[in-house]
């Protein structure tokens, strides 16, 4: 294994008819990471994850897991080390939660003790004998996670794991996912359409838009793209604008506000002094941040900057 | 009316029409096979023979096929788990009616299709004389009623049980039961024997000469009651099903 990447795709493409729902995706998930796979609904997240799991066949490109190429021959070897929860949870409704896990445990060939442990992890041990048909959606989702955890695989692939959970459940699921790499040495690839969720959970992020991976890096580096501006409201906007232009500063006008990139404190202090000297009243001097939200929207929305 | 229209929209691409056409085609194939190379006597009794054979075939096939039709029309709601949504949009009674009427139209199409192919077959074979339209019309109505009773029964079961194996096995048992009723010549008041009680043509088989003679039956009072029973079944299955569906908690 030359790299530390647990999951690697090269020009991964999936075409349905004439539509390319996944287009030349080069994804790299480093070992031990929680990789947040972010994108609006229908951007190709599930399809990508399904191709990684061998549930869908790529039209083009290839995938390696643990440095081993994904193909028919290696399928079993790779699936043994992978746990997954794709789309809605899979379950047999006429069986109890424990019986559902028993089926997966049998197929995975892992120890029966794992069932008790994963039930404890997802806090379903009290509902283990209840029929899954009588579970709430959140419980089914947790059961799905428990099934993915069985055998404590090296790689966990979770597709929208917080779907259908209530706020408390979402919080619980996030904390649970965050604890897994530390506790069991797992690498996690988790998808979501909510930036805030990935922001709280992941340390790496890949953003997909209309089938294309438009951004991939650590979450920290995404944060560094967030930039700050100074917003200024004064009595004579035109004069103030001229002053700034003379200084060679890019300005923009938004409603009554003059916006310009934050330079340094000394310049702002100096600017204020000069405005007061010219008898211009200062109403507001504010710091404005481009939020992660804006970056996400600009990456996934119509604007194609960055 | 709108509810009925949505029923038809829902079953788009479910190929129910195709399924039912295949059913009629196979029956048609059977008839072709059973009536090939007719002799003089068979030509003379041809029109009657068709009316004699049809219920015998239907009694075996229809209970199962009505269970297939009913399951096909209701299983999509089980699979899509759409009851909750539907029940908030429409009164459950209306919903049941829509499913019933939707199936009724299919059943009507099947019965008419069957009669049409009998007529086509008869004319192709150049059976003696013209078909007795009076009996053919009556057969059509009775055949339709028998199918409808079974359809409603199966619809009730299919809507009630998530596990579609239950209604289908009951349909299958119904087919077997109908067959056995036919075999031991016991005209029955059971819904599955309806086709038999509604047979208009009787057969006389002379054990010595081995000559088969067909005739239009004179029905006794009890036999008329058995016929009327079919219509009672329709009412019973419709009302009980509607009530059960309305009361069902989702």
């Amino acid at each position, binding site marked *: 294994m030359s790299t530390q990447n647990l999951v690697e795709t090269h020009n991964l493409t999936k075409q349905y008819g004439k539509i390319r729902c996944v287009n030349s995706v080069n994804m790299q998930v480093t070992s031990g990471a929680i990789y947040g796979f972010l994108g609006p609904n229908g951007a190709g997240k599930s399809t990508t994850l399904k191709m990684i799991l061998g549930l869908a066949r790529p039209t083009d490109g290839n995938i390696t897991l643990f440095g081993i190429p994904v193909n028919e021959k290696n399928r079993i070897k790779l699936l043994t080390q992978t746990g997954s929860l794709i789309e809605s*949870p*899979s379950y047999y409704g006429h069986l109890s939660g424990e019986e559902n896990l028993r089926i997966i445990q049998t*197929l995975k060939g892992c120890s029966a003790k794992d069932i008790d442990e994963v039930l404890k992890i997802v806090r379903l041990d009290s509902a283990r004998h209840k029929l899954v048909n009588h579970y709430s959606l959140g419980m089914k989702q947790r059961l799905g996670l428990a099934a993915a955890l069985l055998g404590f695989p090296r790689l966990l692939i979770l597709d929208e794991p917080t779907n259908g959970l209530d706020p408390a459940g979402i919080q619980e699921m996030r904390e649970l996912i965050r604890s897994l790499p530390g506790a069991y040495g797992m690498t996690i690839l988790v998808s979501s359409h909510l930036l805030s969720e990935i922001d709280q959970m992941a340390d790496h992020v890949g953003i997909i838009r209309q089938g294309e991976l438009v951004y991939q890096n650590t979450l920290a580096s995404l944060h560094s793209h967030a930039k700050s501006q100074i917003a200024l409201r004064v009595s004579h906007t035109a004069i103030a604008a001229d002053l700034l232009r003379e200084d060679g500063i890019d300005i923009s006008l938004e409603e009554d506000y003059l916006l310009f990139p934050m330079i340094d404190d000394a310049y702002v202090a100096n600017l204020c002094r000069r405005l007061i000297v010219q008898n211009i009243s200062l109403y507001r001097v504010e710091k404005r941040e481009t939020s992660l939200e804006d970056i996400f929207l600009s990456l996934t929305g119509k604007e194609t900057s960055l | 009316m709108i509810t009925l229209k949505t029923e038809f929209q829902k079953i788009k691409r479910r190929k129910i029409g195709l399924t039912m056409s295949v059913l009629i085609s196979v029956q048609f194939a059977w008839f072709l096979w059973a009536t090939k190379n007719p002799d003089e006597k068979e030509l003379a009794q041809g029109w009657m023979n068709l009316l004699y054979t049809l219920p015998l075939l239907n009694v075996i096939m229809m209970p199962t096929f009505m269970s*297939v039709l009913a399951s096909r029309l209701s299983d999509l709601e089980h699979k899509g788990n759409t009851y909750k949504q539907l029940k908030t949009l429409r009164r459950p009674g209306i919903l049941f009616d829509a499913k019933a009427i939707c199936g009724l139209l299919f059943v009507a199409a099947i019965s008419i299709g069957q009669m049409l192919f009998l007529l086509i077959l008869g004319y192709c074979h150049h059976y003696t004389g013209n078909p007795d339209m009076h009996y053919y019309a009556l057969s059509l109505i009775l055949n339709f009623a028998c199918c409808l009773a079974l359809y409603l029964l199966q619809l009730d079961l299919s809507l009630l049980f998530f596990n*579609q194996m239950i209604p*289908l096995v009951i349909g*299958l*048992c119904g087919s*077997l039961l109908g067959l056995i009723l036919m075999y031991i010549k016991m005209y029955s008041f059971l819904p599955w024997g309806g086709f038999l009680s509604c047979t208009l043509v009787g057969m006389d088989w002379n054990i010595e000469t081995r000559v088969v003679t067909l005739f239009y039956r004179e029905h006794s009072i009890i036999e008329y009651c058995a016929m009327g029973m079919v219509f009672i079944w329709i009412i019973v299955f419709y009302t009980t099903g509607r009530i059960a569906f309305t009361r069902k908690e989702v």
Partner: protein
Amino acid sequence: MNTSYQKAVKAERLKLRRSPVWLAFFALPIISAFFGTVNYKINISILKSEWYSLWSQHTLFLCYFFMPALIGTYCSYLWRLEHTHHNWNSFLTAPVPIVSLYLGKLTQAIFMAVLGNAWIFLLFYVCGKFAGIKSSFPPEALEWFLCGLLGTVVICCVQLLLSLIIRSFAIPIGIALLGGVLGLMMTNRDHGLDYPYSIYCMGMRANNPSMEVNIPTLVINSLGYIIIFATLAVLYLRKREIAAN
């Protein structure tokens, strides 16, 4: 518990807990046996071959129409478990070869069909004793049973393929019934052994217990059909992206 085949079989058995689907295999032969015996007793003046007459009364309709449809129902049920509740995702990501997963289903189907057949024979014996047949139990019954078994496996393979491809629960069952009807026509034209749905009836001698059946042809045709339909099912599972839609 080590081979993947054993794992798959055990998993299938676990899935079928709490579902009383075997009841159907219990009930249908009883109905058939009951009415068959009644009819035998009523017509005892014409039906003179004792065990052989009773056998045809018991099995004729059961084998042509109802066992195929019943096996079809069971096969539909086996795949419906995966067709519902997004189970294809977990079914196909289990670290077990697809062949084993398929064989797990097939084993379950065959197991049920064998039990059903054994039940038919048991009912036959009991009803025969009950009907007061004095002669000894026909020694050919073992051959009927074994040939019938092969025929059952053929039907299991066909129906498993149909129910895998057609997602509807009911339609494959309708096809099974039609297949049975066509099987009767094929048998009457002496093509009974060439057609998947009628091999079973031929093997069981359902029509006529004294019928001569070419055993080698029956075995070869059955094995041929089993291999063809099983291969098609495995190929379909491999090639089609079942979980993708």
